[in-house]
């Protein structure tokens, strides 16, 4: 009899599905996706119903469309912006105001990234220094700034440091130079490009070409005679000669500038003007006016009354050109600025000033409007490059370049904060390179700078770049804290736009898109760089 094998169970005990790992896994995922999608659809539904209530996506024909939601960007913004890279007036549309804000964000992020990188690298290296004070100073700096909130630091820098600088009337002026530091910001001289700059630039290009030719010729000759002929020095000299000749040519031969003189000024040429002022002041040497005021022989009011009054267009190069020449003669002057040339010409015609400064062609064109009054046209000299010097006129400094306290506070805050993080990244990067690499480099006889440049840094950069990217992104996004210190960045202006136009959804879309593109651009650039320095694996 054959032994029957034990019967195979007909029905295997099945695991109930609520205890089956595979089913539970799938169910959990389905549940999660469902909840996320439900949440998102609820939010979207809420947004779309709010948009319906507000009617902010309404087209002129009464229908709702996404495109029409952005028509408001063409409406006049009607608010002013303190600082702008491009021209802006309150009659410009919201779109331009937002662009101004975006450019301000780019400005602060650009300088912030550069300065934070420098500060971070130096501090990172300093932390590895064998000098106790240097490494500890770096450590304290990093610990302090990394562990306090950025907003707090910004408030402190703005309200606790910058606003405690001296009043604008007592601005700090280091070494008597025309640099002014006050609670209204930092005012420094700024270059003004005159029309003849183009001529000088041509000469500069020509000079560069001559310099290259000289250098090549001398280099060939050097190879022939086999001794140094100082080719670099000679080519620099050639360049300087051509550049100087060009400057003189542009100065002497070209002038687009002129002034209109009122009949009350008995001047026939430009050189008469300082003499007229000197006569008004009782024949004093103009160079001694300031000492005379200081000694009490003249009062400030007397000087102001004797000063030449100039009508000019605001921010026009003509004013800087004339002012630079009057400054050279120490002639005191007062400027009355208007928005446009016709307004300036009207002020001149009304006798509000003795001189009207502008480009000669513009002055000739506006002569038609000046009928009925007596005046003379006098062409004046021009230099390719003039400097506009800040002068305290009335309530604020006029002319030159102004670094506003808001910008300064934001830039300093972002640089100090992000620099602390970058310092740690740099330190980690350098420490990640094994000691043996340095020892091997030294054994091969590389110099210290070669060791750093060829062995340590390339390997450290691989570790540094990826986290550095996120610090750059952080800095860019943290710049939106600008609103706390009154800097007109993208977010501050968009927030005002949102409020004035009543279109939160659209404004948020724009702002998010803008920050997203800034971030993606930075990531893209650094990823490209990262790919270049990455370890090539075969």
């Amino acid at each position, binding site marked *: 009899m054959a032994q029957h094998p034990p019967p195979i169970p007909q029905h295997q005990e*099945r695991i109930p*599905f609520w205890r*089956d790992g*595979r*089913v539970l896994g*799938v*169910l959990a995922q*389905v549940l999660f*996706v*469902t909840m996320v*999608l*439900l949440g998102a*659809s*609820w939010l979207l*539904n*809420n947004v779309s*119903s*709010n948009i*319906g*209530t*507000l*009617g*902010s996506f309404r087209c002129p024909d009464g229908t709702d469309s996404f495109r029409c939601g952005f028509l408001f960007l063409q409406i006049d913004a*009607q*608010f*002013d*912006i*303190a600082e702008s890279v491009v021209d802006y*007036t*309150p*009659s410009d549309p919201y779109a331009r105001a937002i662009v101004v804000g975006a450019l301000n964000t780019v400005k602060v992020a650009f300088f912030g990234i550069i300065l934070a990188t420098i500060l971070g690298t130096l501090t990172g290296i300093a932390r590895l220094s064998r000098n106790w004070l240097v490494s500890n100073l770096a450590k304290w700096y990093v610990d302090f700034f990394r562990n306090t909130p950025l907003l707090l630091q910004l408030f402190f820098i703005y*309200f606790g440091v910058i*606003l*405690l600088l001296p009043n*604008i009337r007592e601005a700090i002026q280091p070494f008597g130079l025309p640099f002014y530091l006050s*609670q*209204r910001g930092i005012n420094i001289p700024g270059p003004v490009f005159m029309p003849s700059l183009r001529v000088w630039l041509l000469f500069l290009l020509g000079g560069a070409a001559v310099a290259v030719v000289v250098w090549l010729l001398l280099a060939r000759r050097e190879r022939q005679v086999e001794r140094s002929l100082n080719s670099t020095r000679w080519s620099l000299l050639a360049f300087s000669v051509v550049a100087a000749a060009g400057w003189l040519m542009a100065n002497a031969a070209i002038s687009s500038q002129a002034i209109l003189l009122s009949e009350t000024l008995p001047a026939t040429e430009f050189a008469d003007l300082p003499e007229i002022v000197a006569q008004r002041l009782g024949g004093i040497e103009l160079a001694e006016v300031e000492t005379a005021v200081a000694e009490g022989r003249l009062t400030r009011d007397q000087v102001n009354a004797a000063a030449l009054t100039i009508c000019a267009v*605001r921010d026009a190069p003509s004013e800087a050109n004339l002012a630079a020449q009057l400054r050279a003669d120490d002639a005191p002057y007062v400027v009355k*600025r*208007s*928005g446009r040339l016709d307004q300036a010409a009207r002020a001149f015609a009304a006798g509000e000033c003795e001189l009207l400064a502008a480009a000669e062609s513009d002055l000739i064109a506006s002569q038609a409007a000046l009928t009925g009054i007596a005046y003379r046209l006098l062409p004046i000299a021009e230099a390719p490059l003039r400097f506009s010097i800040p002068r305290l*006129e*009335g*309530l*604020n400094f*006029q002319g030159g370049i102004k670094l506003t*306290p*808001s910008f300064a506070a934001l830039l300093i805050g972002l640089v100090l904060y992000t620099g602390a993080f970058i310092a740690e990244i740099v330190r980690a990067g350098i420490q990640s390179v094994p000691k043996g690499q340095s020892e091997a480099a030294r054994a091969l006889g590389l110099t210290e700078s070669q060791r750093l440049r060829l062995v340590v840094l390339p390997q450290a950069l691989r570790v540094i770049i990826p986290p550095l990217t996120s610090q750059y992104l952080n800095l860019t996004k943290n710049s939106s804290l600008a*609103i*706390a210190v*009154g800097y007109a960045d993208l977010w*501050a202006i968009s*927030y*005002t736009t*949102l*409020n*004035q*136009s*009543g279109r*939160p959804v659209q404004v948020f879309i724009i702002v998010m898109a803008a920050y997203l593109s800034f971030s993606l651009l930075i990531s893209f650039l650094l990823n490209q760089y990262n790919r270049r320095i990455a370890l090539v694996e075969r």
Partner: protein
Amino acid sequence: MNKKSLSFFVMVLMLALTLVACGGADDSGQVAELQAQVADLQAQLAAAQAATGAQAATGAPAADAPAPAPTGDTLQTVRARGVLKCGGNQAVPGFGYINPDTNDFEGFDIDFCKAVAAAALGDANAIEIRPTTANERFPVLQSGEIDVLIRNTTWTLSRDTQLGADFQPTTFYDGQGMMVRRADNINSLEDLEGGTICVQSGTTTEKNLADVFRARGISFQPVVFDDADRTREAYEAGQCDGFTTDKSGLVSQQILLAEPEAHVILEETMSKEPLGPMTRHGDNNWGDIVMWTVNCTIEAEELGINSANVDSFLGGENPVIQNLLGETGDLGAGMGLSNDWCYQVIKQVGNYGEIYARNLGPNTPFNLPRGSNNLWTEGGLLYSPPFR
């Protein structure tokens, strides 16, 4: 769960089903079970759709309408919550600020919030103030986070039509002013040529400043902050030559300066600034309640009724007063309020004159003259339509 999300859920479930089905053939038991679930849900969906159809047939709102409607039923929401949420200010003494002694919100605007609470809930203290900055006040109202915005908000056409909100009667007629340092010897706006001006962002003053200065050809540099305190601090520190906001706001900010007497407010008024409460567009009933609450305080002052003597007017002869206090007629019922709503407002908060005197009057540091904010019978602009 509404129709859309339900159908979506079914879809996802079906997707899951396919995944599971592909996963293994021996899961047919589970598959069957899931199919049963789907059938069940589909039945639910059908039922829901039928219900919607029925609703649509009876003229009820369609299911596509937003579920958490932030408009239309503010009174019910407030009643159910038992507390009125007002958007207010915390940095403008006299109008809306936190009293450092009591840690309570106090001020002219806060009192009107109390008045609305007295009318809607019968309890002036059932309020919750949500302090807002100038920029965030409108989104906060639009989103339904607050029931009414009473925060020195200027009534303008574009705000009325574009922000999804309605203005209620003006509680304070104001105009934009400019504060400068006495030592600077500035007597008119023209003297501010080339100066720096501190202004708060998201305000009508920010726009007026640009408009007025442009029209007069005065160049200036704005310094813009999002917050009233920061704006004042920057001005006080010397960052600005001028500080501009509504004149009432300037008076109120002046007492917060370290040396109030070192600053002057220029005579010039740069604009009209009618300040009043704001409600969400679309809820007309709630708008009526806020509107007539303000009118109630004005009418009470005109009739000489105040919080101290209001009880003595009860049971009187004057039909106008009997109507106002809800002893006759049904003025409250039209708005869904109890009939004594105006009595509660006067009794618990007071009439307009009392509110003004309490916050801005001679016994306060501000001592603001009533000016335009006087009854029409006294040469002012306050005029309540009749309570009939």
